């Protein structure tokens, strides 16, 4: 079981809470939607999921493919 960071942009309202409380600064808001910042590392801590008021970002357990690992981004 590998964990992955999932973003549902259609639910994102761009409040920026996830990006502000990300301990690695791995998220950014572009055009009022959240996305992963290039060249940063996500440690899958789940702080963004805890505070997202719109449930648009979360950590999911991804079965199978071991290559799907957030750090490879």
């Amino acid at each position, binding site marked *: 079981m590998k964990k*992955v*960071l*999932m*973003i*549902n*942009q*259609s*639910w994102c*309202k*761009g*409040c*920026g*809470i996830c990006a*502000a*409380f990300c301990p690695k600064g791995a998220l950014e808001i572009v055009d009022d939607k959240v*996305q*992963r910042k290039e060249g940063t590392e*996500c440690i899958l801590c789940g702080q963004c*999921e*805890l*505070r*997202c*008021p*719109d*449930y*648009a970002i*979360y*950590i*999911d357990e*991804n079965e199978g*493919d071991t*290559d*799907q*690992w*957030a750090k*490879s*981004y």
Partner: protein
Amino acid sequence: MTVDTGDVSVKTKNMSNLIYKYMRPEHLPQIWCPGCGNGIIMRDIAQAIENLGLSRNSTVIVSGIGCSARAAGYMDFNTIHTTHGRAIAFATGIKLANPSLEVIVVTGDGDISAIGGNHLIHAARRNIGLTVVVMNNNIYGMTGGQYSPTTPTGAFGTTAPYGNLDRSFDIAGLAYGAGASYAARGSAYHVQQTTTLIQEGIKHRGFSIIDVASICPTYYGRKNKKGSAVDMLKWQRDNSVTVDQAAKMSQEELKGKLVIGLLHQVNYPEFTYAYDQLIRRLFEEREENE
């Protein structure tokens, strides 16, 4: 929907398991403003229910009117969206009709302390086994930013353009003064702690109130120049003190601070239990007389 890795895998459900299990996805995303703290608190409630392993069938969510009351529509339990301020009155009826149900009232500061103030103090006095989660945003958000009973003195609202003259209510303190056997305060920022407080409140036998400081960036934040949702959450982070810390601080130091944690817990007979005992006693007395 995007996945964090290079190749995009397609998933049918585009939400976390918790949300999928306890919310009604057809009604999401919520109508709450960007950055509203209510969504965070609603997730806390779902997480608390998940941690306790409560069945969806034996849990009832009751809400009144206001921004917070929308929660009853989003949460996938037996839910009822009631009239303004009367959520506790409806919940009392549900709890008395079937005491085995876990009744959770989701309400706002205006709903519970202004319009429903009397219901709050009398339900607390009765010690009926409800769990009340207050999404306290210090203002009437849905109707356009009028000051509420929890708006701090001097703070601004659309009906207080020169600052609010009244002193604010401490909802947890009010309920505790009225006899609630469990009173706690959480905040939108302190997710895990608030979840635990809600969880303990549900487990507690008796009236439990969890006053959760929410954030309203649209009205309270804008009227009072508190900045964005992020700034308001940072304020909560930097100005919160736990109950233990607060005990060592003077009144002066505590000014403008948010005291979070379990404020008060006592045990005395819960109302539906006492009512059941009364019925049993009367039945026994009648049998003896016959």
